[in-house]
Each structure stands twice: as structure tokens, then as C-alpha cells.
């Protein structure tokens, strides 16, 4: 019996296989990696409403750009995850 076990373990020893090919998770576009900037501040000595409105409008622009960036991140991740999971 011992001899048989030894024989089978020897004969089956070459049956172990693992495929050494794998896909690395892709790198995200550099544009998406840039952090959102801080909101612009109004000059402390400003007394004009138009200057305040202008800074507020520029801050809205920054927010909208950041919103697009977050949406793009989400889309990028969903797409890449789907592709990545196909390779299994």
C-alpha cells in the first residue's frame, strides 16, 4: 500500500498547473488624477458686488469641473472593472 501511494504521488506530481498570465489593473488617465483645486477667495478689501459675483461664478465653474471629474472617475472604474472581470 505504501509503495502504491508513493508510486501515485510520483506519477501525479507533474499534474499541478497554474497559468502565469494575468492582467494588471489599468492606469487611470492623468487628467482624472489631478486633485480639485480649493475654492477661490474674494479679496478682503473688495467692496464691489460685481467682483464678488465674478469670484462666485468662477467657483461654480470649478465645482462643475470637479463634478464632471467625479462622474468620469465613476464611469472609468465601471468600464475597467467590467473589462478586468472578463479576464478570469
Amino acid at each position, binding site marked *: 500500500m505504501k509503495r502504491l501511494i508513493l*508510486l501515485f504521488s*510520483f*506519477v*501525479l*506530481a*507533474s*499534474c499541478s*498547473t497554474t*497559468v*502565469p*498570465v*494575468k*492582467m494588471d489593473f*489599468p492606469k*487611470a*488617465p492623468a*487628467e*482624472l488624477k489631478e486633485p480639485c483645486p*480649493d*475654492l*477661490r*477667495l*474674494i*479679496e*478682503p*478689501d*473688495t*467692496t*464691489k*458686488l*460685481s467682483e*464678488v*459675483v*465674478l469670484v*462666485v*461664478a*468662477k*467657483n*461654480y*465653474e470649478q465645482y*462643475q*469641473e470637479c463634478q*464632471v*471629474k467625479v462622474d*468620469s472617475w465613476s*464611469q*472609468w472604474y465601471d*468600464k*475597467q472593472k467590467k*473589462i*478586468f472581470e*472578463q*479576464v478570469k
Partner: protein
Amino acid sequence: MITWIVEHILLVFPSWFWIVFSGVGAIIYFFSDSISLIPAVVPYSKFAKAIGGIMLLVGVYLDGGAGVTATWKQEVKEMQAKVARAEQESSTANTEVQTVFKEKTKVIHDVQVVIQEKIGKDSGKMDANCVLDPVVIEDLNLAAKGKKK
């Protein structure tokens, strides 16, 4: 180390070689007793049995190894093709996301340019009847910084 040696041996010989090798081993092993009937070969019969047994074992082992290696190579090939296809799809998806991001950002910027021009034009009306107290600026800046007063 053993795997490395086995893989190199398998590369040298064709897969059918191991079937023939183990077959020859089996013949030697099973007929070694019959050889002992010939007086001149008697001293070699036990030696031949051992060699035949080893040849049979090694042949079966390496034939199995050759089969597994062939399957394994096929799997590697399929996986490599799959990965190459996925990398291409991934690159296309990256480009799509980048393009949409750039287009949307450009639209936001273009709209803001128009709005800021309008603010510039309307500044006279805005500033004519309104003088801001410094506390307005202070409060707005605090809100922008996101810190407590």
C-alpha cells in the same frame, strides 16, 4: 528545480517518445523473467527488471507531464490572447472617458466665459446701488475655506 528539469527534458523530446519509452520499459520489466531462461543472460535479468521498471515509471511520469504541459501551454496562449484583447478594450475605454471628460470641461469653460463676460457688462448695474460691508467678504471666504468662524 525538479519542475525546471522536467520542463527542459519535455522540450527536448516529442510527446510520443514517452509512450514508446514507457512501452519499452514495460516490455523489459515483464519479460525480464523470461530472459532468465537463457543462461547467458541470467546475470542481467534482475538488472533488466529494475531498469525496465524505472523506464516504465519515468515514461508514464513524463508522458503525463507532456500532456499537462501541452494543456498548460494552450491555456497560456488563450489567456495571453484574452489579456491582449482586454488591454485593447481597456485602452479604448480610457480614451473614451478622456474624450468625454475633455469635451464636458470645454463646454463648462466656454459657458463660463460667456457668463463672466455678462457679469463684466452688468457690473455697472450691480455696483451702482450696492456697497458691500466687509463682513460679507469675510463670511463668503469662510464658507469657501470650509472652516468655522
